[in-house]
């Protein structure tokens, strides 16, 4: 940590009168009192953190310099024109902020009115937000201006374009422009041909510019490790064993004898899988193993979907729920549905004939023989079965719910800033996790259980473990709300989507971001990992589904067709089909196999984003519901698609 940062921390501690902590920190950091005058000196800095905008440039020159720059961009060769054009937006924003900061409101508004509307359409929303800022006071604590001020706007540019720009700047010596470009813009140079307009448009649009190449250099273990060995348990029953081991249901039976070597060979062949002990996971209990075997057996009856075998969709519609349902989730084995309501209630329905039972009381539990095989069943009170149960405890709209893989726990997050862990055996709240200071938008259980991740209005995502009341990791870096979070199937990574229009992949072990992907033009509301773990699909308010290749962090496809925000994405269990559902009451089925085949046949250039596939080529089918926006999608183990929608009686 740098000294200046320490000083800032110290200053804050002082401000809140936390003397003990302050002294401890001083001691630990070996800072004497020599920094005592630091706070004084910094005081002015913190109150006006915008020193970067302090400029004595003549306000008259701004418009001219912008015009000059624009003329230069438009006059340059066609191949460089579009890349050069990328600097116009950040330059305009910073000029505007500088003018506002220095009190030339009139000039700033003129500049914005004149050049704002001609920026790319995906910047208009931010420009509208910036246009609100017309006084220096307004910049205080404003999310967007803070972002622009404290972060450099990243622009990827080819070497040729960059040298062209540098030459121009040297020639002109326009101090205002030069200053802004040096202070607030970062050029991420790459070798090769300059990009064209559509290539640029595909990956721009995020707050803070594009992702640097550096951001996506770390190796990501996106593979799926070998399934935990459940042979020991399954050994007594021969065909259970087979069901458990058989990863691929299509495998002919005669290979049975060789399956063990085959299996181990397969794991060796997947170089992208993380070592199994990369993150610690609690040992499997007998019951978990039993469930696992059951799941495998079920999976062997799975239908392989594809363009010729389209899925069947069973739609669960929530009636009488006008605008009160915020989220829904179905368990992995498709036996339960949990719904979070805006009136703070979480409600769980059973989707199978088995009722939702509660555990017996303490005295009764003493009578249960612990050694019998079906102890879990015996613990439950047969008479308490109900088809739906409500969980009360939150004090604000519930924005997300997630089941633990073993179906005994449910996690929910709410506007009341808390995350609650519920038991689905005794049907009460077990833990309240307080850590986020602001509404929590999303929460997800890890596919291995034990861990869960949350995303919040406070611009952070956090990693928790059920037995820790404080977060294990804090993923900070987004410039705006983190709207959604999703675990990688191997549990080693967490993906987040944010209102800053960036998708980020975080490493659970280190807490660092390992992928940063730009291309969305609006907040991201939904994420889904492909079954193979290599691809990530994201969708949101901009009504597009984007597919990313995690091996290099490239945008590979843009699936358009929805007309309203998309809130649900799901991959079929076989990985061949991607489905998306949105507020436009449409469910769209996309051919993912075709997409992956095309990608793998293509040569991947690490430095360069490949051409983005756009269009309806991948759309297999589109199904409409009757004015019922889709809020959740889930594939059963046998590849039946379950959709959850809420009937919107008002709009009809």
């Amino acid at each position, binding site marked *: 940590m740098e000294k200046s940062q320490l000083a800032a921390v110290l200053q804050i501690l002082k401000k809140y009168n936390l003397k003990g902590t302050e002294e401890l920190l001083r001691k630990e950091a070996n800072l004497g009192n020599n920094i005592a005058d630091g706070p004084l000196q910094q005081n002015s800095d913190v109150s006006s953190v915008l020193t970067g905008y302090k400029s004595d440039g003549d306000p008259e020159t701004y418009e001219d310099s912008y015009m000059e720059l624009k003329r230069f961009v438009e006059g340059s060769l066609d191949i460089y024109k579009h890349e050069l054009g990328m600097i116009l937006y950040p330059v305009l924003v910073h000029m505007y902020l500088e003018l506002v900061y220095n009190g030339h409101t009139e000039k700033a508004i003129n500049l914005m009115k004149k050049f704002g509307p001609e920026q790319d359409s995906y910047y208009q929303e931010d420009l509208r937000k910036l*246009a609100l800022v017309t006084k220096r006071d307004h910049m205080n604590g404003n999310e967007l201006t803070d972002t622009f001020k404290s972060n450099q706007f990243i622009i990827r540019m080819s070497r040729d374009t960059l040298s062209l720009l540098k030459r121009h700047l040297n020639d002109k010596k326009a101090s205002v422009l030069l200053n802004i470009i040096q202070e607030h813009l970062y050029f991420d140079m790459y070798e090769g041909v300059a990009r064209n307009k559509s290539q640029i448009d595909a990956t721009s649009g995020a707050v803070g510019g594009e992702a640097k190449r550096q951001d996506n250099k770390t190796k990501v273990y996106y593979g799926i490790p070998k399934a935990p060995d459940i042979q020991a348990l399954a050994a007594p029953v021969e065909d259970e064993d087979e069901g458990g081991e058989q990863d691929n249901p299509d495998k002919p039976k005669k290979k049975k004898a060789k399956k063990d070597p085959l299996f181990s060979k397969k794991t060796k062949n997947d170089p992208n899988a993380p070592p199994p002990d990369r993150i610690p996971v609690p040992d499997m209990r007998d019951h978990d193993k039993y469930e696992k075997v059951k799941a495998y057996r079920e999976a062997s009856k799975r239908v392989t979907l594809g363009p010729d075998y389209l899925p069947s969709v069973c739609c669960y519609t929530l009636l009488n729920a006008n605008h*009160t349902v915020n989220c829904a989730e179905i368990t992995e084995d498709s036996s339960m549905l949990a719904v979070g309501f805006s009136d703070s209630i979480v409600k769980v329905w059973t989707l199978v004939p088995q009722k939702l039972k509660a555990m017996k009381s303490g005295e009764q539990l003493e009578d249960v023989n612990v050694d019998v095989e079906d102890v879990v069943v015996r613990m439950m009170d047969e008479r308490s079965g109900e088809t739906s149960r409500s969980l009360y405890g939150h004090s604000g709209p519930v924005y997300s719910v997630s089941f633990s893989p073993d179906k005994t726990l449910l996690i929910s997050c709410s506007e009341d800033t808390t995350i609650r862990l519920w038991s689905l055996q005794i049907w009460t709240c077990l833990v309240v996790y307080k850590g986020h200071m602001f*509404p929590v938008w999303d929460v997800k259980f890890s596919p291995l259980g034990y861990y869960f991740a949350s995303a919040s209005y406070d611009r952070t995502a956090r990693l928790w473990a059920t037995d820790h009341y404080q977060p294990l990791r804090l993923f900070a870096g987004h410039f705006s709300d983190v709207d959604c979070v999703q675990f990688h199937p191997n549990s080693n990574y967490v993906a987040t989507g944010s209102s800053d229009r960036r998708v980020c992949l975080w490493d659970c072990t280190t807490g660092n971001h390992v992928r940063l992907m730009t291309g969305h033009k609006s907040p991201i509301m939904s994420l889904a990992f492909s079954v193979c773990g290599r691809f990530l699909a994201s969708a949101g308010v901009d009504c597009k589904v984007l597919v990313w290749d995690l091996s290099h962090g490239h945008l590979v496809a843009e699936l358009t067709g929805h007309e309203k925000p998309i809130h649900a994405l799901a991959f079929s269990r076989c990985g061949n089909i991607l489905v998306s559902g949105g507020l436009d009451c449409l469910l769209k089925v996309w051919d993912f196999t075709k997409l992956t085949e095309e990608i793998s046949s293509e040569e991947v250039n690490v430095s360069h984003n490949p051409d983005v596939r756009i269009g309806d080529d991948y759309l297999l089918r589109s199904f409409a519901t009757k004015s019922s926006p889709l809020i959740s999608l889930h594939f059963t183990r046998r590849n039946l698609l379950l959709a959850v929608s809420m009937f919107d009686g008002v709009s009809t």
Partner: protein
Amino acid sequence: MSKNAENDLYGTNLSVESMKVIAESIGIGNLPDDAAKELAEDISFKLKHIIQDAAKFVHHAKRTKLMQSDIDAALKAKNLEPQYGFQSAEGLPFRFASGGGRELHFIEEKEVVLNDLLQNLNAKAPLEVSLRSHWLCIDGVQPTIPENPPPVAKNIQKLESVDPINKKPNKETSGKPTTGKQKLRNVETVQIKQLATHELSVEQQLYYKEITEACVGSDEARRAEALQSLASDPGLHEMLPRMCTFIIEGVRVNVVQNNLALLIYLMRMVKALLDNQSLYLEKYLHELIPSVTTCIVSKQLCMRPELDNHWALRDFASRLMSQICKNFNTSTNNIQTRITRMFTNALQQGDKVPLSSLYGALEGLSELGAEVIRIFILPRLKSIGARIEMHLQGPTTSNIDKIASEHIKQLLIKVVAPVLKNLKNPPDYVEEYKQEFGYLGPALHAAVVKARTQPTPSTTTACNISTSLTNVGATITRTVSQPCQIIQQNTGPQRTIVMNQSGRVANQINNQKILFVTQRPPTPGGSVQPSSQSQQNTVVKFVSNTSTISQQKMITTQKLIQGNQPPVAVVQKSTFQQSQLKKADQMQPPTVDDLSHLM
């Protein structure tokens, strides 16, 4: 740089005026201009900020509409106190007022009487959220069930029929997967051009069979269900051509057979289809309009014109026609013009036109609105009057003509009087009317005078039609403009139409077999008919709406007569199949339509 774009970026700010008004409302008399301006700017900024934040809560609640709770949540996130006491499920009803050069938008706030709230402790509880499951699609095919939207939305159907060029080649409809394995086999067999085959699934065939049987069968309850289904089911689009063919063929055959009951049933089917919100009938109008027209102007629609109430059918069909005109008239198809012309042609033919057709043409025209009546009926009143006078007053006319003339007279008085009332200024002179309208003059005069004295005349016919047509059943009691009610005897031969549908309906359209079973009383017809006829002459009467008691009496006498009749048996025809015979046997002979549903 357009003005719109500018507005987009900067939007509007609260005005200084508003600030002053608000300041006044909390007791600050004269807010200085500077302060007001400063406040307006600051508050606008803060408000916009809060609304921007509230948008996040809208997204996360998976809505597209901003609600009060979102603003509250945004305020809460900013550590501000939420606005308590605002509750509005729908958008806030802004009111606008202007005066003295000032414009004002405000929310109308009603005073709430707390006592009332306290006393009504049992507020209406919201309905509990419930879960319902259905198949959205099965193996890639979306079933047409009420839970799913209609396969082809009405606006697309409309677009398709109005503007066929715009029709996009749908590569993915809700039909069967185009690349299925079965399809591959189809490709192997030579198929040069993809013909639009409209195959019906087995379920659809069954449905078609059930519906058509129920619609023309004898069970009124079942018919009501079937018509309800036709009027409300979303998935009928694919079956529409067949339904239309069924109706057209049915009308064609039954007009020849003079089977009034079946014609009425078929018209009710047309009505049900017209009422179905998910169907757009334009493509089938060229078939339906002639059928409906037939039911309006046909010379004879029933076996015994002097007894049966074919007038009600003509009235009903006329209303259907006006509904068709209203729904589908465009500047390109000119349906209304063409239909008006058709009816007018009938009027122009003078004495050659049978009286029943004349009645139909007049009724058809009068349903098209007051303007049509004024232009096309008024000038002909005199000649029509002369003609019906001949039948009503003349000594040698037949009973049939007399009844028809009486109907025409009543109709004309009913529809022309409101028009004349608006057209002519009081005072009304009998002589003048006599001069202008001949025979009908005095009666019209009386009707106009009567209409003038009534404070609230029944609305113009056009309006009345629209209301009574949208819900025939419900408006029976409401229509007051019906001056008379016709009661008729329920005897006489009846027919049942049975369709042979053993094979696939899809392949049958062109060779549909329609079999007719005549059901007659076993007693020789000759001996019954005259006696009943003699009764009929006394029974068929115009009963004015006011004298309901006598009407009821007459109905009871009818029932008595019915009850006395010998049981009805089926006369077997040689071509009839055994199975169908059984079915026909089970069916009760249709009681000749209780016409009350048409009124």
